[in-house]
């Protein structure tokens, strides 16, 4: 399907999130959309998929026909389906039931057929999803997989993916890309929003760049990477020097720790984390790294072994105890686990600070919020509701919730949805914490990020945990192999 956007405007109160955007996307194209955080990418995509409506005067033309899209249901009827940056509300229902959601027609669901379709699609993509399990047990990446399958099942002919690659592993990404290319060959139009230049370069035949709500450029493959960056930020951005800040003192030590959840068993983990050290956790989604991380925060029960934190035995203690000892955990599912939709930025910062007293000190709260907003470069005011921020800005808000001082910071996908400039900036802030003696353990599906910022790396594969690998002595290739289950003999 060919899509033509004409004079798209969108205001949120005073914020002019889309300014006069004109864009033509040919049928079967894979169109990349790039832009810094808050550039207006998600807004544009939500307009196209009916979640929000553009200001009057804007036009959407589908295969030469002007259409109005009033709701996501409308959009799906026109064949436009969107995979959101933040998967929306997921009630605790079974995967297969979620899969059938939004299916038009009779009340009687053909359960058996649905199971078969589900299995067929999952096989096509190589997604390991159990239709009988429950949605709320899925990780971010798995939810995205489920969403993609659902949209295709609903008959989407235009597939919009808003930053789909941040939560999934390299292998899964490859599978996804292959599938998207296959879909494109079947003349399904794909719109792909991303911050990762290499993804766009690998996948998209054409790309559009937004900045400050405006369309500032359109490019065709092959691309010049520098040109992209300049268009996005209006300047050249360079990566900082890699530096290690590890000190002698021990923060966390794991002694023969064993973990278990419904899907995975982890045995005999031994690890000593030094103050100032950064440990990266690599592995395919669901290989045990999230369980490991939650255990380090007291959010998952250990079934054996000891967790020592700064000399104290915290085995079996709750997250709140860990927290009192200086541990903070930031989950990947921002709007589900980390932030409170309906509350504003200031309220979040107040909550995270645990102030004493009874009555809210409004001026102090506003001051605190203004400081954090400034230091984390958040686009929004103290009174902006959290859900009105762009994805990247929500991520910054989440990072801004970290308390001071801290001894251990646990991060799931800390730069998910951040643009390149912000990634560098945020890591700068995190490294400052290391300088003050905090250790960091983080999960990322981006091996470059892991190599760039970690001192040591743990690789997870199906519940197996590698010995710590010095980041300086490994490579993306070696990590990739380990993640895929190869070369474990010498790890």
């Amino acid at each position, binding site marked *: 399907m060919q899509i033509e956007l004409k004079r798209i405007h969108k*205001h*949120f*109160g005073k914020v002019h999130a889309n300014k006069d955007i004109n864009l033509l996307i040919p049928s079967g194209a894979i169109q990349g959309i790039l832009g810094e955080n808050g550039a207006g990418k998600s807004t544009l995509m939500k307009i196209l998929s009916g979640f*929000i*409506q553009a200001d009057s005067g804007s036009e959407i033309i589908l295969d030469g026909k002007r259409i109005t899209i*009033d709701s996501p249901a409308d959009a799906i009827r026109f064949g436009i389906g969107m995979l959101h940056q933040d998967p929306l509300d997921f009630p605790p229902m079974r995967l297969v039931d979620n899969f059938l959601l939004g299916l038009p027609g009779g009340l009687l669901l053909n359960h058996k057929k649905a199971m078969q379709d589900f299995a067929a699609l999952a096989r096509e993509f190589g997604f390991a999803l159990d239709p009988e399990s429950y949605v709320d047990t899925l990780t971010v990446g798995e939810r995205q997989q489920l969403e993609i399958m659902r949209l295709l099942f609903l008959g989407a002919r235009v597939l919009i993916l808003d930053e789909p690659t941040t939560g999934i592993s390299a292998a899964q990404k490859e599978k996804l890309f292959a599938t998207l290319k296959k879909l494109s060959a079947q003349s399904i139009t794909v719109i792909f929003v991303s911050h990762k230049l290499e993804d766009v370069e690998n996948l998209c035949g054409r790309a559009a760049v937004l900045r400050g709500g405006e369309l500032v450029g359109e490019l065709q493959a092959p691309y010049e990477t520098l040109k992209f960056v300049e268009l996005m930020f209006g300047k050249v951005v360079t990566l900082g020097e890699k530096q290690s800040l590890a000190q002698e003192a021990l923060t966390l030590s794991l002694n023969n720790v064993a973990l278990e959840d419904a899907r995975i068993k982890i045995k005999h983990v031994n690890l000593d984390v030094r103050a100032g050290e950064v440990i990266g956790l690599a592995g395919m989604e669901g290989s045990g790294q999230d369980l490991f991380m939650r255990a380090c925060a007291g959010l998952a029960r250990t079934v054996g072994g000891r967790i020592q934190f700064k000399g104290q035995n915290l085995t079996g203690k709750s*997250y*709140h105890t860990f*927290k009192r000892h200086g541990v903070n*955990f930031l*989950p990947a599912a921002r709007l*589900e*686990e*980390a*932030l*409170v*939709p*309906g*509350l504003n930025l200031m*309220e*979040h910062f*107040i*909550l*995270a600070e*645990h*102030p004493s*007293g*009874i*009555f*809210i000190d409004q001026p102090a709260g506003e001051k605190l919020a203004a400081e954090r907003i400034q230091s984390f470069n958040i686009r929004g005011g103290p009174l902006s509701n959290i859900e009105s921020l762009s994805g990247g800005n929500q991520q910054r808000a989440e990072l801004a*919730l970290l308390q001071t001082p801290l001894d251990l910071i646990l991060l799931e996908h800390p730069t998910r949805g951040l643009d390149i400039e912000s990634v560098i900036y945020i890591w700068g802030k995190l490294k400052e914490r290391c300088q003050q003696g905090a250790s960091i353990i983080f999960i990322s599906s981006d091996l470059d990020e892991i190599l760039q910022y970690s001192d040591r790396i743990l690789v997870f594969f199906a519940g197996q945990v590698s010995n710590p690998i010095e980041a300086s002595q490994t490579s993306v290739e070696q990590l990739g192999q380990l993640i895929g289950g190869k070369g474990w003999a010498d790890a």
Partner: protein
Amino acid sequence: MLKARLKNLAFQLAALILAFGAVSIILISAGASPWEAYKNMFLGSFGSVRKFAEVLVAFVPLLLVTAGLLVTFSAGLWNIGVEGQVVMGAIVTTWVYRLFLESGWNPALIIVLAILGGMVGGAIWAALTGLLKTFGGVNEIFGGLGMNFVATAWTIYLIFGPWKRPGVASMSGTEPFPDEFSLPLLANLRLSPWALALGLIAIVIIYFLLQGTYFGLRLKAVGKNFRAAYLLGIPTWRYSLYSFLICGALAGAAGAVQVAAVYHRLLPSISSGYGYLGLMVAMLINYQAIWAVPVALLFAALNIGSIQLPIVMKLDSSLSGVLQGALVLFVLLMEGARQKLIKRAS
């Protein structure tokens, strides 16, 4: 900004008109004049000082219940058990009265003790629902319904059994307490200014609790996102329990007022359904404390005003219930429509 506010108002007015319209259709199809009915209801509630005082008598427990429910709703809890908490408040109030009736103590002291007892009773009853949820994994809706049932069964047992009038076994209630054990009433009226003050103070406190305190903010966080609140370091279960305790205490106070200022004894239907009515009020005001007073007053006025219908027009009083239900329904519907429109327009 002003435009948005006007638009809000327009939607709320539309809801009001729709609700009255729907009830008018019912009235017309029953062969009655809607105008007459509304006029009678209005005059029946605001037509004289005495009538308005009756409205306030109903308003006080309703306001107390609503104030309590604002707290549990803020914490994201559906405290259906509020009805039982009112009943429990009434039971304990009656119990305290019975304990001290012959003690010769100052009646004022006994009244205060009885009301405090009622609040404790309601709070404990609510806490049980909370504990069932926390430690038993029983959803508060089902737990609450169960506890309502138990509270009512208990009242009936007490009235028919240990607390029966001598030589009598009747559902008509226990022996009334002597006049000096009543909360002081205004001359020639059944309204107790103390009860009214209690209700108004309660709603003011709840308003500030929810709007201006750290406690209220944490409660809201728990209500809006339980998991995030936990990760933010809020002891979530404890806050759920606090909200149950506060709501239960206020519901218990409503039950206490029913005993100490309205019925002066325990009846099987001592709660007068104010628990469920309070749930409707809370839904109607979309959990904003600021609207609790006017809407609870409106609902109380409908209850009292509707007494005129059978007297004057031979219509059933339950029409007020229909009207209350229609109001809640249409306001919720219009709120949905408004949000849709806002999404499109902005």
